[in-house]
């Protein structure tokens, strides 16, 4: 106990500013939006500045488009040339809208014919987080574990590759990332005991180039001689087996259902791994590598370069799949290539993306599940009072299972040097119980009830200064924040709320400048693009759902607080505030 406290002090007392300025992200902005994160560095920063702090208040609806689906719409629309592409939740239709015509009429629609049964193994609504455009093709994943490439011009299928089996509980919900001629895709299914993986498919043929599992022996994880983790605990052979009870790694989770970033200079991809399975930690003693951590991999060979574990022996379903923003920061006077990560476990990490060293890790919200991060060993220091135990309900754990921030991505503006984090303020009661593995059924082993954290608000929108290592301002949102953020060169930040408000804030002060009420709650990712008419547009998909909105999208009964893995308790009022229904909203200055 004493050493833990000392380490905590060590971690916090180091909270002095580490950077003065931040360098520009590495993207040339031509007004298109070809990938959900806007660029390989995942900034979600648009350099368009027609819409700015002064005129955003006059933003008007330009056109709308209904997807006809009532599930959660988490995807970012893409804009390539004069076409906008929308990928919907199951049944994973692709809609291409012609932006060159008035009202953006439908150009084509692609139906991948997804197996309906896949809905039964999708843990948290049947969402899809977006497609990726590269070299005339659109790449996306289907719920039934296929990666599909379609011709962006015609909507004709080019190839499809089946990557996993729904009978094992696997699904795919993440947005692919194409880099170096490879389509990188990963699995979902951390609640079903699916052994997670990241696969690289050949961009042209769809053939699997390599696949790196998140658990198991080194050869499965693609750990070889080039693997040089920064911290000693990540060194050793076959840790993906040794840090698990026998056989458990085969059903151990670590799914790659979140975001991938890419550094073309280092030729490294960065991505996080999800929670270990089952949730009940008593069934999997050990650090459970390589779950709930971040990998840097050589994009060509898939060989791991380094790894860091955010939550060793994760207790709370704190997946490590959140996005990482790649920037260069001046630290102690020297520019360093870093990655920024608002982690689910409640800490905002600044890491050296060359070596995997944690430079800073600071709580960015209400947190009591951990006492700090020991910067010497890199290890999270759990709070013994909040440790879960099978057969016991542990109360008041903050953050809750969706973490301080879930998958919904933040944005970084090089102009303000701030990171804009849409996140949660939820705490939970957690009752671990024995989970029984039956392939294709949930492998969770926990009853959870979530509720608003201190302050009573369930969502927070924080502007975080990574240099100063503290929040510049924050906006309290009543409902959980489940949408992505967008920031533009006009110094305007956009995000949506679950009751359907689409908001624009002053990126510097956080002042609310404009808002629009959509037909359904917003959990999608806003984008900004230059239309063929030369004007800057803002677009976002509305359509409530996802884990947070499952109460509405799944028609659940909120009288059971443990419904939707406990999220229902925190969103019991949601059915009274919004209804489902996917709709694209596009805005422009008049």
């Amino acid at each position, binding site marked *: 106990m004493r050493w833990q406290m000392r380490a905590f002090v060590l971690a916090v007392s180091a909270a002095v500013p580490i950077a003065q300025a931040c360098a520009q992200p590495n993207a040339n902005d031509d007004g298109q939006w070809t990938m959900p994160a806007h660029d390989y560095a995942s900034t979600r920063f648009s350099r368009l500045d027609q819409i700015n702090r002064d005129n955003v208040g006059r933003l008007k609806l330009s056109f709308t488009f209904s997807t006809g689906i009532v599930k959660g719409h988490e995807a970012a629309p893409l804009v390539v040339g004069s076409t906008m592409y929308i990928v919907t939740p199951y049944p994973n239709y692709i809609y291409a809208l012609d932006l060159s015509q008035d009202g953006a009429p439908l150009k084509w629609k692609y139906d991948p014919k997804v197996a309906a049964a896949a809905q039964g193994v999708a843990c948290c609504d049947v969402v899809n987080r977006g497609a990726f455009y590269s070299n005339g093709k659109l790449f996306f994943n289907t719920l039934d574990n296929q990666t599909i490439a379609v011709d962006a011009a015609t909507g004709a299928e080019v190839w499809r590759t089946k990557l996993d089996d729904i009978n094992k509980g696997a699904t795919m919900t993440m947005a692919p990332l194409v880099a170096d001629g490879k389509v990188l895709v990963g699995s979902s299914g951390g609640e079903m005991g699916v052994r997670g993986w990241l696969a690289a498919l050949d961009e042209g043929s769809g053939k699997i180039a390599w696949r790196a599992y998140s658990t198991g022996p080194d050869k499965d994880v693609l750990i070889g001689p080039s693997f040089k983790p920064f911290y000693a605990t990540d060194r050793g052979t076959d840790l993906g087996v040794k840090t698990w009870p026998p056989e458990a790694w085969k059903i151990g989770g670590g799914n790659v259902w979140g975001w991938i970033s890419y550094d073309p200079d280092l030729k490294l991809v960065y991505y996080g791994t999800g929670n270990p399975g089952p949730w009940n930690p008593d069934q999997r003693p050990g650090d459970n590598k390589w779950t709930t951590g971040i990998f840097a991999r050589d994009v060509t060979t898939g060989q791991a370069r380094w790894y860091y574990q955010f939550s060793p022996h994760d207790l709370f379903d704190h997946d490590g799949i959140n996005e990482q923003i790649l920037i260069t920061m001046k630290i102690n006077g020297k520019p360093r290539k870093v990655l920024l990560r608002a982690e689910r476990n409640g800490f905002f990490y600044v890491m050296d993306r060359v070596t995997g060293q944690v430079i800073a890790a600071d709580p960015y919200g209400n947190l009591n599940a951990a006492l700090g991060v020991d910067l010497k060993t890199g290890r999270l220091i759990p709070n013994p009072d909040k440790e879960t135990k099978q057969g016991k309900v542990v109360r008041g754990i903050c953050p809750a299972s969706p973490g301080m921030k879930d998958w919904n991505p933040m944005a970084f503006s090089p102009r303000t040097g701030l990171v804009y984090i849409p996140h949660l303020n939820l705490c939970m009661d957690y009752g671990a119980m*024995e989970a029984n593995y039956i392939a294709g059924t949930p492998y969770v082993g926990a009853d959870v009830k979530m509720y608003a954290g201190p302050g009573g608000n369930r969502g927070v929108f924080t502007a975080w200064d990574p240099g100063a290592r503290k929040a510049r301002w924050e906006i309290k949102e009543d409902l959980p924040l489940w949408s992505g953020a967008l920031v533009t060169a006009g110094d305007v930040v956009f995000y949506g709320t679950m009751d359907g408000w689409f908001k624009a804030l002053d990126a510097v002060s956080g002042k609310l400048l404009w808002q629009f009420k959509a037909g359904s709650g917003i959990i999608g990712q806003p984008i900004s693009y230059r239309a063929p008419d030369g004007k800057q547009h803002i677009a976002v998909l509305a359509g409530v759902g996802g884990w947070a909105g499952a109460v509405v999208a799944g028609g659940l009964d909120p009288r059971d607080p443990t419904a939707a893995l406990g999220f229902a308790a925190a969103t019991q009022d949601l059915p009274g505030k919004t209804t489902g229904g996917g709709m694209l909203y596009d805005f422009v200055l008049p």
Partner: protein
Amino acid sequence: MTRARLSAVCVGLSTSGCAGVQSIAPSAGAHTSAFNSLFVVFLVVCGFFYLLVIGFLGAAILRRRRQGEDGVPALFRVWVGLVSLSLVGLALASWLTDRAMASYGDKGPPVRIRLTANQWWWDVEYLGANPSEAVRTANEVHLPIGRPTLIELQSNDVIHSFWVPNLAGKQDLIPGRTEDIALLPRKIGVFRGQCAEFCGAQHAHMALTVVVEPEAQFRSWWRQQQAEAPAPRTPEQLAGMTYVTTRECATCHAIAGTTASASVAPDLTHIASRKTIAAGTLPMSRGGLYAWIADPQGVKPGAHMPYIGLEARQLDAVVAYLETLK
């Protein structure tokens, strides 16, 4: 038939008959030795007092018709003093023995076991230096002689009690708590433990086999238990494996090396290496397996193993496969 079946259980445990495999008297552990010494002390003291009382009573009866309290008040004071002193002595002896017993866990590097009780079987997990060395089995515990074993005790449902009389006294397993007990075996042999707290319908059939063996033998047992299940060799065994890993069996049982990974029933990876079936209800044998799988509710009514109604061919195949799981 039942008689034959059950004497077979006992033969499964010991070649020289069963008497004493679950008994306090043939001591096989440090705790039972201490128990025996203390018991003798109590027996002697209590026996002495009993003889005193009976003697006095007999004298009183025989003395009939004689009157007077001559000497009785003095005798009374002696009696009370004697009783009190002996009780102090016994309490002290008991306390010292208890202290001694508490220290047995410190005698050498311990084997660590996590024992989880369920209605009505024992889930056994050997904890290795790192989690991947753990060994999971059920209803059978192997212990190296002369080395302490630390057992973590948990319960998944109701209160049970861990009791291997030849080795040590009881410790309850209480839901929501983790208790522990240390054993220090000092005699090689096969012993039987049994749940000692009433735990529902099949409380009577919740036994635990305890094998005390030399360190080397224990090591090789551990290694063998760590291995995955052997692959089937005959078509019949293969059919059995297919059934076990894809049908009803796989929703509850696990077999390492196959896709069956469920954990609400005993691990079957090395079931054929164990001495009994269904927590000491049947001997491990072809016949035992047939009896148990064909009609578990006839053998152990109320147990959670359901009646499945296998066809004869399926039953043959399943038994053939399970028999290979050494």
